[in-house]
């Protein structure tokens, strides 16, 4: 019988750090607790996030707040139809003085990369992110350069106004660990947000944020995740849920192996966020929607009948027998 490799003190410290990070971001991103939590989970799990929401919900603000809270470098790229791959990754340029080619690094050489409105760029530019997201390296003129750790891509897309957009290919969608839906804050939160932004000038709020976590702390937390205990039955349960999507009536294309890995990994981080050294079935269930919602393609009949991916995933989780000891 394996036991958790983490003692209570370490778990408590980790929880406090994560809570401090979340609370710091929540200072400016009011009413989006779930979004903040899921982005932090993806960051600690070493994955990338696709944020979907209408404009003006603070997606860019979230990235800036996260970067400031962890003392990390961040870059923002506005994806447009004329954006070229080299505009993201970088390119080599002839130095007239020395007569040699020198590499000019693109905005992808950072810790947190915000790919704003990613679906506005053509497939070629979107594909430039594939290597970055999967291999954590960039190749320019045959020279591969590893990215500094931690590295995370946070891409946004707008669910409305789809005129002239390029839907993300399945291969790229699969590389996003989580798809987080950013919705409007509650009534009370919106009032607070309005007050906050009218009492202080926009931007001032953001600049007041202090760093609560060092880069080393962030990397340590990531390492702690590896020591979170997960029972084999829970791994089987997570894999079973993912496999169900491949055979489920109403799903044309189910989730792949990356989904199983992401589900287990994020469940571990979720446990760590709660100060637990072990994963329970609840942690897996909690991460089911953000991990799988962008990895399944519904059949035409279900789409026509207005079924959402979340409804299908709910059906799957309600039909799956929970693991028992």
């Amino acid at each position, binding site marked *: 019988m394996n036991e958790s490799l983490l003692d209570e003190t370490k778990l408590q410290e980790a929880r406090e750090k994560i809570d401090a990070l979340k609370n710091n971001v929540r200072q400016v991103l009011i009413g989006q607790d779930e979004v903040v939590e899921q982005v932090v989970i993806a960051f600690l799990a070493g994955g990338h996030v696709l944020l979907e929401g209408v404009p003006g919900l603070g997606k860019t603000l979230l990235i800036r707040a996260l970067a400031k809270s962890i003392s990390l470098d961040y870059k923002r790229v506005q994806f447009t139809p004329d954006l070229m791959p080299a505009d993201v990754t970088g390119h080599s340029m002839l130095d007239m003085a020395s007569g040699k080619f020198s590499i000019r690094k693109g905005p992808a050489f950072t810790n947190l990369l915000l790919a704003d409105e990613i679906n506005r760029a053509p497939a070629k530019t979107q594909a430039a992110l594939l290597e970055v997201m999967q291999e954590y390296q960039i190749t320019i003129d045959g020279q591969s350069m590893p990215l500094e750790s931690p590295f995370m891509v946070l891409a946004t897309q707008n669910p409305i106004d789809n005129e002239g957009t390029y839907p993300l290919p399945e291969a790229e969608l699969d590389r996003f660990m989580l798809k987080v839906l950013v919705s409007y804050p509650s009534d009370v939160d919106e009032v607070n947000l309005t007050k906050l932004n009218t009492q202080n000038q926009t931007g001032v709020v953001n600049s007041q944020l202090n760093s609560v976590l060092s880069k080393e702390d962030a990397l340590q937390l990531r390492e702690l995740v590896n020591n979170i*205990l997960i029972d084999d039955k829970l791994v089987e349960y997570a894999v079973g849920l993912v496999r169900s999507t491949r055979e489920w009536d109403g799903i044309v294309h189910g989730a792949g192996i990356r989904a199983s890995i992401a589900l287990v990994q994020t469940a571990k981080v979720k446990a760590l966020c709660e100060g637990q050294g072990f994963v329970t079935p609840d942690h897996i269930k909690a991460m089911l929607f953000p991990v799988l919602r962008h990895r399944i393609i519904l059949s035409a009949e279900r789409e026509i009948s207005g079924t959402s991916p979340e409804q299908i995933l709910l059906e799957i989780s309600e039909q799956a027998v*929970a693991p028992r*000891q």
Partner: protein
Amino acid sequence: MNLDKISIDIRPRNSWRAFDLGCVMAMKWWKPLMGFWLIATAPLFLLACFISPEFGPLLIWLCKPLFERGLLYIYSRRVFGEEVSAKQALINWPKQLKKMWFSSITWRRLSPSRGFDLAVVQLEGLTGEARSKRLTVLHKTTDDNSGWWLFICLHWEVFFLIGLLTTINLIIPQGIDINVMTVFRQPEPWMLWLYNACLFTVWLIVAPIFIGGSFASYLNRRIILEGWDIELNFKKIIIPKSGNEERSNKASVLSLSVIFISILLLNAPSNSAYANETQLVPEVNQSEIVADAKLEIETESEQPEFESKKRIRDILDVPPFNENQTVKKYRWKGWNWEAETSEEQSTIPEWVEVLVRFIATFGEILLWLVFAAILFLLVYLTKDHILYFLRSASEKVDNPTIDLPSFSKVYEEEGLPSDLGAEVEQLLASESYRKLLSLLLVTSLIEISKEQRLPLTNSMTEQECLRVIKASIVDHRKEFMQTLIDTWIKLAWAHIWPSNSKMKLLSEEWKDLFELHLSETGEA
């Protein structure tokens, strides 16, 4: 049937004017019509609504053609001058239902021309093939709008219904948060009753109009086919005459009219158009007709009407009116072209006819095969959609409820022991904490589920189950279950072994809270 007593203006109309006539008839005789409808349908409607406010009206709607027969009975009598009250109609109504009552509320219920066709069944008493032939003749016109009449009445029903509901909605005082129009989305019982009342009112208004229009259209068709107006005009001509002359002229004009009608009948496309003639044409001896006709021909030249006809004929016989011109055009001659053409002398060689017939038959079979293939292909291509909609209609997502002993795998196979108290003691002594916790958990859940319904399912995790359990129990049991499940989760998923003292405490609490009940009920 006596045309002399007919109470409407007999003349050929187009079908829309016939429907207008039907509306006028409905307005004129509204008392017996609505009276009959109220007496016949209201009790059954109320009964059906009491049984099921949602589906009761549907049943009455299905049976509407039966009630409409009573309305047609009133119309058919009133048109020919017979005063029929609602009461009399109600007494005679069951007799009207004898023929084709079942088909009229099942496979013929949705026929668009059912109002028009009803007269053929009910008044002419035709069924089977005779009915089909008769309807073929009656519908064989470009002016057959009986189906449209049904759709118009259907629209009236919808407009009246929405109008009534809107009116009620408008007169609800401000401040009362009721929207009657939500009856279509989230109907409350009283709203359903209100809706049903409106529906009944709408039927009460529209049903007599629908049957009136349909019957007027049917009468109009027969007037055109059988020349009732001509017959009636002949009758009117002889009315002013008196004495012997009157009698002889009456006989001669009547005879002539019969001959005229007979000629019309002979030239008509099918004999079936004159089904039930005994009801329509006054019974006259055939020999009398011939004798009267001879007499009429002899006296023809003496009558001014025939003189004018002769003068007209003379004018038409001289140019430019006598220029006959033959124009050849292709035109549709109806389905019975074979019968008609067979009488004509054919100049086409027989083998050509055989060949044409063969090609036609072959083409017909080919067309049917193509039609069947397209139909099959359509069904095949849409099989997934059809299956999906059939499945979604019939199936509901089934969440199997949990079998409580299977909450823990430990006791799932071997079953619970007979003496629970002794088993707990024994497990505690041997430090078999996993088994002990399983036993405590399963027995506690069984005991709670006897007192409170626990909607637990197999897909629920321990924490989800705990949330449901905590909502069902109070006080000490709630605290005990919280501790028990927390300990179980730590053992199951964190592999953290509970301390001896904790297990002792849990066992003691379990005994206090559950063991007594279990032994009392003999469940253990």
